[in-house]
C-alpha cells in the first residue's frame, strides 16, 4: 500500500503520478475530491488527523507533498512508523526491498543519494507529470487536533511563486525599498510574479516574507528567473536552481550569481528596469 497526501491539489497530483508509476494499491489524503487514488480521505487537513490517517494504512511507502505543512506531517508519520525519511526527493527508484532516492542537501550545493529501507516516507515537489484518473472511493474524515488555529492570514496580495512562469526577484542591490516599484513595473510588463531574496524580505521588509525565494522561503522553477541585484548566496541559489533560464542584473561582475546565471547584465538595476519597460511597451 502506498499513501499519497498533500494539502495542495497540484502537489497531490505529482505525488499521485509517482505512486501510480509504482503499480500498487494507493490511498490518498487531500483537502478536495481528487480521483487519482483507489481510495481518498478528504479532510480539512489538521496535522494530527492526517498523521493518524496515513499511519493507520500501514503503508510501505508514503509520498507527501512538499509544502511546509506536508513536510511536518511526513516527518511525524516517519517517526510513528519508524520509517526511513527523505523529504524533497528529486528522483526515486525501487530496488527490491529498498528505495534509492536523490535529494538536494547542504543548502543546495550537494546532491545526495540515499538508500531507504521499507517502509519509507518521502515528499516530492510539484511536477509536470499528471496522474491518470481512477475509480476513487471517497471517505470524509474530520477531526480536531491538539493545536488550535486561532487566525489564518493569506499572504498579502498572495502569489503562488511555486507555480509562476516568470519571476522578477529583487535583492539588496536594488538599492532601496522605493526602488522596488521599478521591479514591480517590469514584472507587470512581462506578466511576472515579484519575489525577493532573504535580506529584502525577512530582514529589510522591502517585500512581504511570503515573497521570499530561497532555502527558507519558496523553491521556485519558473521558465524565466530575473535576479535583480541579488548577489547569489547559497541560501538563495538553493531556491531558484531549477529555473529554466536565469538572467542576473548586477553592477558587480564578481558576485557569485555570475557563475549561476545564463545571462549576466552588468548594469544598474533601476536603469535596467526602466529601459526594459520602455522597450517592451514601445
Amino acid at each position, binding site marked *: 500500500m502506498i499513501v499519497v497526501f498533500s494539502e495542495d491539489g497540484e502537489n497531490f497530483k505529482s505525488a499521485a503520478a509517482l505512486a501510480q508509476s509504482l503499480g500498487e494499491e494507493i490511498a490518498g489524503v487531500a483537502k478536495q475530491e481528487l480521483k487519482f487514488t483507489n481510495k481518498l480521505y478528504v479532510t480539512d487537513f489538521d496535522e494530527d488527523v492526517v498523521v493518524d490517517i496515513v499511519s493507520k494504512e500501514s503503508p510501505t511507502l508514503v509520498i507527501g507533498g512538499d509544502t511546509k505543512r506536508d513536510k511536518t506531517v511526513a516527518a511525524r508519520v*516517519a517517526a*510513528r512508523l519508524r520509517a526511513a525519511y527523505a523529504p524533497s526527493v528529486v528522483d526515486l527508484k525501487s530496488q527490491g526491498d529498498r528505495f534509492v532516492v536523490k535529494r538536494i542537501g547542504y543548502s543546495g550545493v550537494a546532491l545526495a543519494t540515499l538508500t531507504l529501507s521499507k517502509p519509507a516516507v518521502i515528499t516530492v515537489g510539484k511536477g509536470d507529470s499528471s496522474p491518470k484518473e481512477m475509480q476513487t472511493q471517497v471517505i470524509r474524515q474530520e477531526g480536531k487536533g491538539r493545536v488550535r488555529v486561532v487566525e489564518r492570514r493569506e499572504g498579502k496580495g498572495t502569489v503562488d511563486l511555486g507555480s509562476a512562469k516568470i519571476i522578477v526577484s529583487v535583492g539588496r542591490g536594488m538599492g532601496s525599498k522605493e526602488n522596488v516599484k521599478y521591479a514591480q513595473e517590469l514584472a507587470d510588463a512581462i506578466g511576472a510574479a515579484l519575489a525577493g531574496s532573504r535580506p529584502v524580505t525577512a530582514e529589510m521588509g522591502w517585500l512581504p516574507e511570503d515573497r521570499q525565494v530561497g532555502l*527558507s522561503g519558496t523553491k521556485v522553477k519558473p521558465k524565466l528567473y530575473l535576479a535583480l541585484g541579488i548577489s547569489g548566496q547559497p541560501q538563495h541559489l538553493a531556491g531558484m536552481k531549477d529555473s529554466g533560464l536565469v538572467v542576473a542584473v548586477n553592477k558587480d561582475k564578481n558576485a557569485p550569481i555570475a557563475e549561476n546565471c*545564463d*545571462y549576466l547584465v552588468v548594469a544598474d538595476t533601476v536603469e535596467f528596469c526602466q529601459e526594459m519597460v520602455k522597450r517592451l511597451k514601445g
Partner: protein
Amino acid sequence: MLADLLIHPRLVRVEVGLNVVVGFKVVPDETLIKVSSGKLDMNVAVKISTYDKNAIEEAVRIKESTGGKAIGVTVGNTDRKTIREALSMGVDEVVAISTQYTDVLGTATAIAEEVRSMNPDLVLFGETTTDGSTSGLGPMVAEFWGVPVITFAKSIKLDGKVIRAERSLTPVVEIVETELPTVVTVTGEINSPRIPTLRQIMESSKKPVRTKEFKSSPMASLDSVEPYLVQRKRIVLEGKTEEVVQKLIEALRKEGAL
C-alpha cells in the same frame, strides 16, 4: 519520580521558571563548501547550523524572562568549540551525544530519549539544518515524546502553560495555540541571535557539558554526496544599458522565454 529529581535536580519546577531544551547541530559551514575538480570539498570549518542559533537565542530569552533553565542537546559532531558558543550565548548546560553517521530518525530517537528523561516544558529546534535540510527533527521528536508540535514559528508568546505562535507557512501565516509541553521549530525571522561578550565566553567554560554515545542503526543510508550543479551559459552582457537591454530582449525572445 524521586529518581528523576535526583538525576536532574535542576529541572524541579519553580513557579514560573520554564525549562527549555534546545536542539542544535554542528554542521560544516555550507558557505565554505567548494566544488573542485567535480568533487565537494567538505573538509571545512564547522558552525552551529544557521536557524539553530535562532532556536538557542529564543530558548535563552524564554529562560531569562521566566527564570528557568535552558539545556542544549546536540547529536553527531560534538565539536567543543562550537558547543561552547552555545553555552556563551546563555545555554546553561549541553548534552553532547556523539554518534557515527545517523539519519534524522536516529537523531530524533537520541534526542527524544534525553527529552523524556528531562521532561521540559518546551523543546525548540531550528526550522531546518543547513546540511540535511529535512525540517524533520522537531516533528519527529514531538511524535516520539507524544506532545504537539508547531513548526516554522516566526514568533512565539507564552502565557502560563499556553503557547501561541505565528507560523510562517508560505504564503499563509497561521496563528496557533496549544498547551505545554510542546515542540516548536523556529524560523530565522524570530530573532537576531546575540553575540556573546568575552566575559560570557569566560563563564561558558564553567558550564557543564555531559557527553554520551548513541548507537544508531539508520533507516536511510547515505550512499554518495556529489556536487549539485546546474550548468548555466554565463553570457556576460556589458556596455550601455540601452544596448545590453536590447541584446537581452533579443536573446530572451530567441530562447522563447519572453
